[in-house]
């Protein structure tokens, strides 16, 4: 292994490859900031350039684009509440409220540090554990995946205010309903398309995310002008004091480990990792800290940011060691490797160690360059919020609409996005949380696929839920997560009753 790391260092530490990491991170950040152009588009756009390079350099460039695009996606989530990629949805929950409080610079700094720490820790885990984790991830069956998705859904209580868990649950179900629109790929039948050709491919994630978050936010800014982003506040407060660093350091550590482990599982990826990390941190936070979640909590921002970057690195484990792409982005990277005539799999790090190790080592350098590249830019990026609201709101609308249009080139999507945004505004005015809709929508498809497989394999028997220890553990965690609000309520009322009794006996 040590030899491998040296081979990787020797490959990466050339001027050409360091410049490629830099160029990849810069291009990825700029492309990722544009709603609609996530890491998949960024990598796809860069592939033709990599054909002029040798395989190791090409993969180094593409890996840099990948992290850069994820970080760029966080920037648009924080500044204008427009998560261009699913992995940065959870970043908006606390990043955007911070931007509204005039702390956009600080939010971007935390995102940069958390991303760096998450990516770096995950790169270290990758070096040490890649071969073992590859075997472990293969042991995950569809029943386990199904329960992992249910656990992800049960975390909706993390997005609900005290006593409003039913609202969050209802919004999750709405997300699940929207996920079933389109063609059922297994059976090949249309569901809920009402004969419209435009709905055959279903509703795209980007459309829903832009409709419920970015465009709905633009409407809310028009509806409530007094509560618009406070763009008169200075955004020069970029640094973190010791207290804040002490507050977020353990969060980053925990979320990185969780993100990396989730990223290793094929199909799980950065989105589930970021939601799970957010839910976990909220679950273990003290009552005072918990109240801050969703209102600009530092922990709420650091957790998903470190988890999504760690998951991105983790997703390289099945790609490089097994040749299995764990996400859409790694599928494109797999295509690029195959185009070079390289077959990823267990023999990659034996037959072509310079590629295997240079990609892993370049991840570390990529994260470092990303940090040094973005920190000086943060004050300028944050200044975007000082644009007067009469220009800022139309620009948010323009970038959201264009982002959706550039994916499908279908004007119907713009109409659908408008309807979704109007519904989201009504629901937000009635204090219904929007995050569970996206969570349900993202997990809905994967949930159905895995449930179908698990239930078919067990011939309709529900015993698949408790037959394997992993599934059983996840089931128990899900029940605890679902019951915790009820248990908390019962404990509160029991405690109140006890106190009332004591007071009555004193009298």
């Amino acid at each position, binding site marked *: 292994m040590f030899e491998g790391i040296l081979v990787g260092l020797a490959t990466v530490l050339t001027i050409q490859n360091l410049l490629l990491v830099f160029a990849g991170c810069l291009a990825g950040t700029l492309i990722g900031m544009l709603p609609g152009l996530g890491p998949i588009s960024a990598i796809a756009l860069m592939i033709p350039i990599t054909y002029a390079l040798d395989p190791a350099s090409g993969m180094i460039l593409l890996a840099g684009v990948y992290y850069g695009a994820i970080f760029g996606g966080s920037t648009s989530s924080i500044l204008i509440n427009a998560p261009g990629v699913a992995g940065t949805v959870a970043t908006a929950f606390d990043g955007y409220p911070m931007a509204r409080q005039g702390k956009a610079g600080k939010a971007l700094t935390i995102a940069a540090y958390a991303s760096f720490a998450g990516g770096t820790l995950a790169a270290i885990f990758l070096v040490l554990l890649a071969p073992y984790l590859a075997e472990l991830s293969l042991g995950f069956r569809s029943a386990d995946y199904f329960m992992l998705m249910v656990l992800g859904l049960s975390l909706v209580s993390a997005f609900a205010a005290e006593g409003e868990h039913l*609202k969050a649950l*209802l919004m999750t179900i709405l997300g699940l309903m929207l996920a079933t629109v389109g063609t059922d790929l297994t059976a090949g*039948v249309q569901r809920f398309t009402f004969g419209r050709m435009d709905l055959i491919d279903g509703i795209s994630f980007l459309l829903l995310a832009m409709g419920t978050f970015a465009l709905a936010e633009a409407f809310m800014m028009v509806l409530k002008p007094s509560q618009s982003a406070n763009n008169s506040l200075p955004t020069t407060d970029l640094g973190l004091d010791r207290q804040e660093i002490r507050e977020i350091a353990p969060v980053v550590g925990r979320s990185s480990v969780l993100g990396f482990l989730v990223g290793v599982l094929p199909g799980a990826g950065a989105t589930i990792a970021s939601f799970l990390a957010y839910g976990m941190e909220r679950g273990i936070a003290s009552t005072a800290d918990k109240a801050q979640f969703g209102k600009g909590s530092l922990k709420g921002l650091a957790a998903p940011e470190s988890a999504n970057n760690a998951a991105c690195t983790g997703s390289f484990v099945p790609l490089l060691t097994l040749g299995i792409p764990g996400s859409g982005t790694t599928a494109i990277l797999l295509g690029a490797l195959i185009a070079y005539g390289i077959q990823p799999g267990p023999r990659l790090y034996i037959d072509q160690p310079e590629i295997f190790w240079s990609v892993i080592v370049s991840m570390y350098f990529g994260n470092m360059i990303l940090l040094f590249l973005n920190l000086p830019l943060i004050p300028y990026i944050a200044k975007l919020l000082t644009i007067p609201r009469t220009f800022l*709101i139309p620009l948010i609308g323009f970038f959201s609409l264009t982002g959706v249009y550039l994916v499908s080139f279908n*004007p119907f999507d713009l109409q659908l996005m408008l309807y979704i945004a109007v519904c989201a505004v009504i629901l937000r005015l009635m204090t219904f949380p929007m995050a569970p809709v996206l969570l349900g929508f993202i997990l809905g498809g994967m949930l159905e696929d895995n449930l*179908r497989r698990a239930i078919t394999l067990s011939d309709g028997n529900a015993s698949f839920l408790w037959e394997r220890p992993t599934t059983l553990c996840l089931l128990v965690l899900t029940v605890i997560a679902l019951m915790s609000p009820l248990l908390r309520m019962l404990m509160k009322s029991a405690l109140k009753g006890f106190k009332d009794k004591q007071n009555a006996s004193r009298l």
Partner: protein
Amino acid sequence: MTVYITYSRAIGVLFLCISCFYLYFGHQIQLDFWSEGEVFNARSMPYLIGVSGILVAIGLIFTPTKASATDAPHEWQELKQLNWIPTIAFALIIGLYGLSLEYLGFIVCSSLFLFCSSAILGERRWLIMAVLSIGVVCAFALLINWLGIYLAPGDLWMGWLDV
């Protein structure tokens, strides 16, 4: 006991109707004859979601709320104080943008969208509005073009070019 129509209950009732419709249309999904006997088919997930939706909506309707006699009307009163007219105008502009994008083309339609939206929001510096709208859209179109993504010029101009 008086039942107050709060936001939650109103949405609960609406969602109950949506879930019932969802379940009904879920039952209408066309299945192949061999799929009907399968343990899990294209209708199974919609059934599960629809039933869950009905149960949660009923839960939301009948859950005791903290609303008092003064809270419920107050919730609805708050809605009246919002800035509705510019919001509706902004929504209409977005609707028009979607309808005319293919006809007018990206650059013209987007520039008009930005200009009109700023005007609706109260901006009156016409020159800045025009320069900013056209400048932002042209810069974005150049970037998109540089990335190799094709943007059609619009049916209106295509017609002229044909002539």
